[in-house]
């Protein structure tokens, strides 16, 4: 059933995103062409300018607008799919399907995560396409090689593990951010009036609580002698790793808590209008 839920979730969201991604592709191509014509040689930029400067300026502006629009839309769709599909009239359909509540939440989460990922990759690829030619692939690989050998020299190990750990942290962090929106909306729907205001209130309150807990942690951590670790030069890498993995662990705990609370509310305290 989860697969079917995912299928419909992708269907429901894709039609919102497709026009914007199409626009991104078209604008990347146009901007790239204009860049190519207006600044054929990145090293020798002519001082008198080119007659393509204005179209290039317009195209660039549109290009960055689209990138911002895509990021904003991704966030809006994540909020809107959870709220509208589950907690307005459509909820009457979704919550009477023979599907467990946690699968409904998970399907929204996975597809939200997917679009966040697609957005990031699409923007990165597009910027890379624009940059290439001005920066050569050789320069990039050289830069990466310098970073790797430098890292190897200083710490004696490859940075691959650290990079993987960092990526895991980023993913867990995005999951936690999405679930924080869900839990706030779920709390908001407990109220019979002003549900959206209540959801905002819940979101701000949760942020505050997390801020306070984080501040407390920074006070507590020195007790465990992390400072000694930071001071000893040889263990710098270990310290970074502990920080990253510690953050990952904290995020996993929040993810579990948010997921549990959202599921509990939607299962036992559902309050459809």
């Amino acid at each position, binding site marked *: *059933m989860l697969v079917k839920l995912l299928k*419909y979730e992708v269907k*429901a969201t894709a039609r919102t995103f497709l026009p914007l991604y199409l626009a991104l592709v078209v604008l990347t191509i146009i901007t790239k062409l204009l860049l190519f014509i207006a600044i054929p040689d990145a090293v020798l930029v002519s001082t008198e300018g080119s007659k393509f400067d204005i179209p290039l300026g317009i195209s660039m502006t549109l290009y960055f607008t689209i990138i911002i629009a895509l990021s904003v839309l991704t966030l809006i769709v994540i909020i809107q799919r959870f709220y509208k599909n589950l907690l307005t*009239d459509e909820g*009457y359909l979704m919550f009477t399907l*023979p*599907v467990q509540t946690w699968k409904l939440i998970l399907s929204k989460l996975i597809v939200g995560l997917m679009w966040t990922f697609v957005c990031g990759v699409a923007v990165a690829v597009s910027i890379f396409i624009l940059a290439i030619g001005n920066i050569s692939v050789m320069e990039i690989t050289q830069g990466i090689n310098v970073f790797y050998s430098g890292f190897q020299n200083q710490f004696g190990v490859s940075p691959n593990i650290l990079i993987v750990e960092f990526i895991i942290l980023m993913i867990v962090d995005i999951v936690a951010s999405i679930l924080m929106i869900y839990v706030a909306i779920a709390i908001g729907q407990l109220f019979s009036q002003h549900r959206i205001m209540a959801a905002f209130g819940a979101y701000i309150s949760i942020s505050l609580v997390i801020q306070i807990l984080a501040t407390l942690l920074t006070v507590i951590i020195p007790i465990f002698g992390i400072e000694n670790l930071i001071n000893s030069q040889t263990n710098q890498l270990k310290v970074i790793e502990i920080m990253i993995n510690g953050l990952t662990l904290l995020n996993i705990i929040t993810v579990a808590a948010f997921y549990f609370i959202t599921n509990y509310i939607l299962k036992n305290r559902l309050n459809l209008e």
Partner: protein
Amino acid sequence: MPILRAKGLTKKFGNLTALSNLDLEIPRGRIIGLLGPNGSGKSTFIKLATGLLVPTSGEITIGGAAPGIETKAMVSYLPERTYLNDWMRAEDMIAFFGDFYEDFNRIKADNMLRDLNINPGDRLKTMSKGTKEKVQLVLVMSRDAELYLLDEPIAGVDPAARDYILNTIITNYKENASVVISTHLIADIEQVLDDIIFISQGEIKLTSTVDEIRETHNKSVDGLFREVFKC
């Protein structure tokens, strides 16, 4: 074994008691009218049976099980709201129901849409409120469910469609399935009902068969309703 059983069923919303200590059994193979004035607890009862709400105390079972994915698979529920996804076409909704409900009968759905002159390729967004209600009813009645819970199924449709819909309700369900129809438009559905439940302020006022009412009270259900709930 009755298809639905409620024991001491109570639902409170804050201080407000929507249902109070309800005991009820709904046998199989009957068409039951759940009748009561606005705010009497009809919708709350149906929502408890679908699992949309969780009882404050007491219990409700469908086919012996508490509301959950097994009971949702055998209950076909028509809410008073339009729950269709606006961006879909009627045929997309049919595919959706076919995907999630094993008992969904596609042929039945196609036939009913044709009878009601609804084009499956039309977007729901472009349909009138009444047409959407018809689509929703077609979807719900195209399932071979054990229990149908219809909350105000005819309130928004024209009289001609009303007759067609009532006709589909009485002809479309399996022999040992039951249909619960909640409404306050009693005169319109009276002729299809086997049993009635009068509910008021969260309590059952009367349960009876329609024949009994006609014999002992010498009245129509509508007439008796007006008498019992006289303002």
